[in-house]
């Protein structure tokens, strides 16, 4: 549910917020994360909830948006290799089926779904071990939604850990293997796919247990 502290939690994991307590493990190994940069270096990607405010550089091209988190991968000795950058952008546009005639198109001119795909592309380019998606289907069309579901499932099947945050129950139940329910800033329940239904999730998210 909105307001349960989900975004704050993942921001802390990603190093963009202060971590009160706890430990972060990537593939079983504890890592110390001091900020988004070190989170990215440790194999964590965060696709933030508000794509226009927190994700995209709206006035910049698709190419520049895709490479933003992986500038070190498309550069040598701090100098950007334009060919590599173009190749990365073209590959990503193709892989995600972003509807555009050019990678130089400004992101502001794309539809919501295509904008979301550009951010997803940015994070997949960083080759994360853990990918955090905060409301990735918010405000996008049905077609793009189902493309994103398919993509998430494929990534998980290929061994990537995906944290999928959503307020849409159906979405969570259909996409996720394990569901963590949060309420008022703390975890109120953990359900696996088999034992999960709307009723159980809702009761954990809303009912006050004494």
């Amino acid at each position: 549910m909105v307001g349960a502290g989900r975004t704050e939690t993942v921001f802390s994991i990603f190093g963009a917020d202060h971590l009160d307590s706890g430990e972060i493990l990537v593939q079983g190994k504890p890592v110390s994360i001091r900020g988004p940069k070190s989170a990215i270096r440790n194999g964590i990607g965060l696709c933030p909830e508000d794509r226009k405010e927190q994700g995209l550089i709206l006035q910049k091209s698709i190419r520049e948006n895709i490479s933003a988190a992986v500038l070190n991968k498309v550069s040598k000795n701090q100098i950007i290799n334009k060919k590599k950058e173009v190749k990365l952008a073209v590959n990503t546009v193709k892989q995600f089926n972003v509807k555009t005639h050019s990678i130089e198109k400004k992101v502001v001119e794309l539809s919501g779904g295509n904008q979301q795909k550009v951010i997803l592309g940015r994070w997949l380019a960083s080759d994360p071990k853990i990918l955090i998606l905060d409301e990735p289907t918010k405000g996008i069309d049905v077609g793009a939604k189902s493309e994103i579901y398919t993509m998430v499932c494929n990534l998980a099947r290929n061994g990537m850990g995906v944290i999928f945050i959503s307020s849409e129950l159906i979405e969570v139940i259909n996409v996720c293997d394990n569901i963590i329910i949060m309420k008022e800033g703390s975890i109120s329940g953990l359900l696996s796919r088999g034992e999960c239904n709307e009723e159980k999730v809702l009761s954990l998210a809303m009912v006050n247990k004494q």
Partner: protein
Amino acid sequence: MMDSTYKFIIQVKAMGKKRKSALNLLKLNNVTLIIVLIVVVAIFSVLNHNYFSRSNAMNILYASSVVGLLAIGQTYLIIGGYIDLSCASIASLSGVLAAICIGKGIPWLSALLITLILGAAIGIFNSILTNIFSLQPFIATLATASMCEGFGYIICGGRSVPISNQSFIAIGATKIFGIPLPVIYLVILFIIFGFILEKTVFGRSVYIIGGNPTAGYLSGINPKKVSTILYVISGIVSAFAGTTLAARMHTGAASAVLGSEFNAITAAVLGGVSFTGGSGSIGGCFIGLIIIQSFSNGLTMINVSSFWQKVAQGMLLIGALLLDDFRRKKLTK
């Protein structure tokens, strides 16, 4: 398999082509500027027959050198979403400080280094005000400007400081193949900073934090770190401008270039650097710089009083802002 690979190559090629046409569109902005420049030059050439000459062209470049160096810092900062109104005061203070150091017998290279360090320190001070105390860059650097101006007058007691050390004077007054050193500094620094802005990871970071600082932060680019470097660059380049100016004038004066930040910002904005952050280029800034200098040089040559020139400069800045506004509306359509 072959088929899909082939299709992919075609797609890459097609996108490459589109890229070029998009680049052409961007260049159109510079084409507009060059047309403006040609019009300015044409008008003044008709009004005064001495205007269009090699020696006057060199005069214009020579007069641009200080404002031009200040404009480099402004271009970087404004693209990154910041501004530095203290650049001209840093330059003036540096000139006075250099003159005093030379007067005390400090070797010219050390004197130059001292002023550059001072510039860097003031840059860090600006960065602390905007990043740690979260003050608006506009007002914070205005305060710094006032402080630097004050210190400039304090250390020289309000009098200009004459310089007689020939090796120090040489760094501002030497000519190589008839080209004054300040012009060479200007061209070299524009090329270096243009390259950094367009081709390097740091340059790209500047565009990203200017376009959307939060997105930049979440992509692993720290806006505070980048802006600190920007303020330090602006401080150092401004100090260099002030010191070389003092050398070339044989004098350190606390009022040497006060007010030049105005021209530097006009040059940047006229050259397509947008106050919304995230767009603009060093090349555009250079053309903007040449336009405003040709303009004020022309006004002087047709005997327009310096008071009216001030009015004209203000109008030029308004014109530049309107042009920027028009461009942005056209581009987002």
